[in-house]
């Protein structure tokens, strides 16, 4: 167990470093930060000066080294665009993204597993066919379009739900600002959460269904039936639990990509999370924010991976750490 965690940690560090390196290498091509930092009246000489001051003219590896050296102390510098410490900026935006990701993740998981189980147990029924087909719409239209359509229907035409933002928020503790405790906050969450969760829900549903069908054919399910266990016990106690083992892995990874996918949802719904921050930073070539965001994403993935592995460990007594078997 200790070895397992150690190895995971080592891998995580490598992953983070790789992501940092790759990200850093890529930033040089996203655009010139100076161009967006200064007004049009700034002379070329002044631009060059600023470039030197920011260390942008140093060799790539030196810049990277400096970045990593500061990053380990949690210092990602100051946003070129918003002039605030990047760490603070990200931390203030993170709760919004995490709340959105969590809620849509939970929605996706709950409905995904529910529908998945239903369609697996009722394979071929018209209700399952309908669920399967309708849910596919979630992966057959681009997320941004779904978001815009939801806004159009529920905010503009019906005026049931807000079209943008997070509504009212209250602080929990020092920095966690939540919208979950206010009515407008919850109302604001609905459309973005659906937009973001729809895609994941379909993926989870398909996965659960496929996995469940597989499990339902196994000998131990047949044997459980032969022992006279009730349908409920067989389907949910035995089949579902075994289905969940691989599903947990995939779902964990989904949670990570939910956070990444929130870029689009956040942009459409003007949701004040890190995704929207990132996209604005890309437009502005706000390198410190971009770098920090990517590191954060990598960290989130690494942490989720770790949790998933531990969960896997907990659920599956065979202690098969080799998840390659569980994923397809």
């Amino acid at each position: 167990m200790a070895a397992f965690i150690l190895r995971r940690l080592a891998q995580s560090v490598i992953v983070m470093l790789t992501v940092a390196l790759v990200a850093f290498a890529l930033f040089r091509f996203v655009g010139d930060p100076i161009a967006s930092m200064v007004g049009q009246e700034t002379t070329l000489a002044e631009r060059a000066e600023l470039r030197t001051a920011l260390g942008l003219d140093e060799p790539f590896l030196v810049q990277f080294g400096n970045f990593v050296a500061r990053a380990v102390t949690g210092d990602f510098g100051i946003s070129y665009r918003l002039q605030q410490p990047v760490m603070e900026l990200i931390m203030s935006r993170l709760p919004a993204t995490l709340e959105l990701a969590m809620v849509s993740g939970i929605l996706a998981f709950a409905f995904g597993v529910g529908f998945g189980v239903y369609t697996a147990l009722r394979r071929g029924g018209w209700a399952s066919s309908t669920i399967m087909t309708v849910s596919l719409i979630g992966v057959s239209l681009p997320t941004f379009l779904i978001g815009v359509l939801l806004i159009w229907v529920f905010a503009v035409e019906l005026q049931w739900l807000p079209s943008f933002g997070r509504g009212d928020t209250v602080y929990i503790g020092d920095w966690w600002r939540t919208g979950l405790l206010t009515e407008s906050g919850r109302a604001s969450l609905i459309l973005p959460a659906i937009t973001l969760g729809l895609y994941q829900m379909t993926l989870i549903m398909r996965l659960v269904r496929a996995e469940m069908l597989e499990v339902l054919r196994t000998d131990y399910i047949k044997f459980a039936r032969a022992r006279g266990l009730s349908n409920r016990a067989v389907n949910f106690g035995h089949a579902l639990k075994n289905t969940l083992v691989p599903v947990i892995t995939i779902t964990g990874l989904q949670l990570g990509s939910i956070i990444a996918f929130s870029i689009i949802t956040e942009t459409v719904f003007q949701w004040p999370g890190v995704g929207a921050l990132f996209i604005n930073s890309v437009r502005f070539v706000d390198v410190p924010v971009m770098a920090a965001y990517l590191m954060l994403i990598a960290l989130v993935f690494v942490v989720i991976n770790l949790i998933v592995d531990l969960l896997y460990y907990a659920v599956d007594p065979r202690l098969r750490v080799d998840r390659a078997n569980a994923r397809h």
Partner: protein
Amino acid sequence: MSDIIKKPEPGRVARAWDSDIAYSFRKSPLAIVAAGVSLLIILAAIFAPWIAPHDPFNPASLNLMDGFTPPMEPNQFTGNTYWLGTDNQGRDVFSTILYGARISLFVGFMAVAFAMVLGITLGLIAGYRGGWIDSLLMRVADVQLTFPSILLALLIFGVARGFIPPAYREAMAIWVLIVAIGLSEWVQYARVVRGATMVEKSKEYVQAARVIGAHPAKILIRHILPNVMGPVLVIATIGLALAIIAEATLSFLGVGVPSTQPSLGTLIRIGQGFLFSGEWWILLFPSLTLLALALSVNLLGDWLRDALNPRLR
């Protein structure tokens, strides 16, 4: 072997028609409809230059004043009438959809092909050789998974813009897109193929080939590959739909094919701007086409997944 394959096979079509998979296809109305719709769109896209009444990719043929013509109504300035109306550049929406589907499908197919070739090759090698090659490839796959696909595509796009000389950016955009989408998808293929390869390689027919000293490359390609293609096909089908959607999504983020040669996704992104201004047709028709295409391809994938799973028959 070639001489054997060349032998005329009178009953081939009949036999294919009679096969389990064909049967399961005939028994699934959803799959038939889905296949019909996909085929229709794919054919329409392939033959777009012959079907489409206009060539929206030829800027010289466009008249800006034709812009925003509603479907089936004459344009207020030019008096031209278009079946599905025109967009903001005066492009015939119907023709643009056909040409756009062509681009989308091209991107989709090529991205899938790219991901497939990469994933299958690496998966086969990792699964067959095992050992450190396997560990390395799988770690790379892990890192790749760690990196969300949209971000990856965004960054690849950014980099390519930096590398490619300005004069070629336009022409290369579509290839960059293909590589970006393909690169974010290959892991799936690699994993599936690796897993299946590990299963297949321990099967005795592979050992039989090894006993006679067949070359590993031959074993991989002639023996193992055909036997791991089943799940790959399923992923590829669904991957095609995903790639088409991914292309659309990326176009929303401002990276994508040039708007002078829009794909379905770009069209939707453009049309989305006219949702509240009354020009609903610019959004509606491309969206419906994309929905029909992606939905039917997805349905086909789902059907294929079940049909190829011998245990579900």
